[in-house]
């Protein structure tokens, strides 16, 4: 039942769905129940194209949720994931379109900008002792404004960067195995999740991520430079938001500077539905992926059923509560 254990087990993409299976059985069950329910309700639901659409719809939120998971496990919270994603997309736009530099530089710039902003948030939290909620709220507002400033409140298009849309929409897997046209965006989500899971379970950084959330004072009293590691976690999360920025920019073939607000709530919701505790110390990337999938499946399924929008919202709220309740019941039964 140890979260660490479960975290540790997801040591790579291949192990992502084997490790910690028991731990997450019921959150996973909620997902399965939803999938079966929607399949029965609409013949259009369980089709390859729709499953791929659901995965595609999960990619951006999933990557953001992975970033949020890291910060939340330290006992913090990151409200800036959404606007940071946008900021990184704008940075990519500036580098690639305004400056006309080659694609790899744009990718490096986006991820680098994300990591840098994460580092700044981390510094606010670790060095200046600002509560994570405030530090990342401030960051969220600053980045929201800066995205508009830098872009001149206009979208930046990537028409001059050949191959940019391939980042998200192309399909490496599909080009090798034609029956499996999984878009690169989804592949990237799984790679990011696998890497994060590996870091959490197998590296020193991951160990301190859990330790910080579990009892920061005790880690500090053990002689660990907690500030440095905390900043590292925020920077890593920021870098992952940079990847999300590339994904969304590639998908929309543009950096939309006004986008991003509200994405943080969705990401955090995925994390919590996935069983990660907001008080820190425990959590799994696998759970977060399942949480993100539950949200996408819900949104997609209700739309396919053409449920009226206002009722979609009501049903989504109710099902989120139910899914987590089911998970709680299981944990109680398991003691």
């Amino acid at each position, binding site marked *: 039942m140890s979260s660490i254990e479960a975290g540790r087990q997801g040591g790579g993409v291949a192990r992502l769905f084997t490790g910690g299976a028991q731990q997450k059985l019921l959150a996973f069950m909620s997902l399965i129940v939803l999938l079966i329910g929607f399949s029965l309700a*609409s013949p*259009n*639901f369980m*089709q390859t*194209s*729709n499953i791929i*659409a659901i995965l*595609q*719809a999960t990619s*951006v939120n999933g990557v953001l949720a992975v970033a949020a998971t890291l910060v939340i496990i330290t006992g913090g919270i990151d409200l800036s994931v959404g606007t940071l994603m946008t900021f990184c997309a704008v940075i990519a736009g500036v580098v690639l379109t305004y400056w006309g530099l080659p694609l790899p530089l744009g990718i490096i710039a986006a991820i680098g900008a994300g990591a840098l902003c994460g580092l700044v948030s981390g510094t606010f939290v670790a060095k200046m002792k600002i509560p994570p909620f405030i530090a990342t709220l401030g960051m969220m507002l600053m980045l929201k404004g800066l995205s*508009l400033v830098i872009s001149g*409140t*206009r*979208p930046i*298009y990537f*028409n001059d960067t050949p191959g940019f849309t391939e980042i998200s*929409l192309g399909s490496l897997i599909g080009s090798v195995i034609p029956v499996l046209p999984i878009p690169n965006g989804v592949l990237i989500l799984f790679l990011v999740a696998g890497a994060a899971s590996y870091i959490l379970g197998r590296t020193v950084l991951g160990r301190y991520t859990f330790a910080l959330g579990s009892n920061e004072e005790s880690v500090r009293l053990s002689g660990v430079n907690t500030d440095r590691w905390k900043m590292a976690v925020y920077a890593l999360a920021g870098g992952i938001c940079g990847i999300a920025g590339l994904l*969304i920019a590639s*998908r*929309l*073939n*543009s950096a*939309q*500077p*006004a*986008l991003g*607000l509200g994405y943080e709530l969705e990401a955090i919701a995925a994390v919590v539905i996935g069983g990660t505790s907001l008080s820190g110390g425990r959590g799994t990337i696998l759970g977060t992926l399942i949480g993100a999938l539950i949200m996408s499946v819900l*949104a*997609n399924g209700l*739309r*396919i*059923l*053409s449920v009226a*929008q*206002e009722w979609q919202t009501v049903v989504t709220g109710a099902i989120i509560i139910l899914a987590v309740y089911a998970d709680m019941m299981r944990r109680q039964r398991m003691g």
Partner: protein
Amino acid sequence: QDKMYIPLISKGFQHQFWQAVKAGADKAAADLGVEVTFEGPDNETMVDRQIDMLAAALAKKPAAIGFAALDSQAAVPLLKKADSEGISIIAFDSGVDSDIPKATASTDNIAAAGLAADKMAELIGGKGKVAVVAHDQTSRTGIDRRDGFVNRIKEKYPDIEIVTVQYGSGDHLQSTEITKSILQANPDLRGIFGTNEGSAVGVVNGVREAGAKGVVIIGYDSGKQQKDAIREGLMAGAITQNPVGIGYETVKAAVAAAKGETVPAQIDTGFYFYDKANIDSPEIAAVLYD
């Protein structure tokens, strides 16, 4: 002597449409030698935020105010206050249910969406299933464009079925996902109407990602991606308003009103349908923006 100061309180800020209005206002400000500021809430549900903005604008003792009301009733007390302080109000984008505004520079969204419906019917041969991806369920523009389209179809085209209306907040990504779901649920869909720039571009993205063929897309407003989509033939055409004109006319009327001149009560800035054929014509090109 300070320059005349005119704040514009709009319904939004970040969207391309509002930025075009702002551009028009800035141009008029330069032409007429006045100072303007332009603000609006993050989204069109934030009625009370807009009221706070209006209150702050009044505190600055402006010569006149341009105001695009999210809800005209909510603003009435402040509009009365402005009136009593001799500050002229010019309504823009959509009207205000009140006789306080000296002039209204707006687009008839209902009629414009009706035109979109006519074009849709024409392009799909007067029958089949269509869907609407709208940007907002409760705002004036959202309601008018949805109803303008839906009602026209119902009235004039009995063989066209509107299978669903869904709302994507004008968010490109959300609108993309919605479009893909709609196409999944309705493989025989003939057309989709996107009610603003974000919705329309989202529809284009969704159709492209889903690989759907033969779906007629009609958009609203302008922007580079919509124009590109029309040139490529992915989008059949779109309604455009004249946002630059709206901004320009609003400031112009405000200046005149502040000087005590009479201004026309209604300034119709017009709307147009544009497609591959006329997109580069001077008349249309003038009202489009990137």
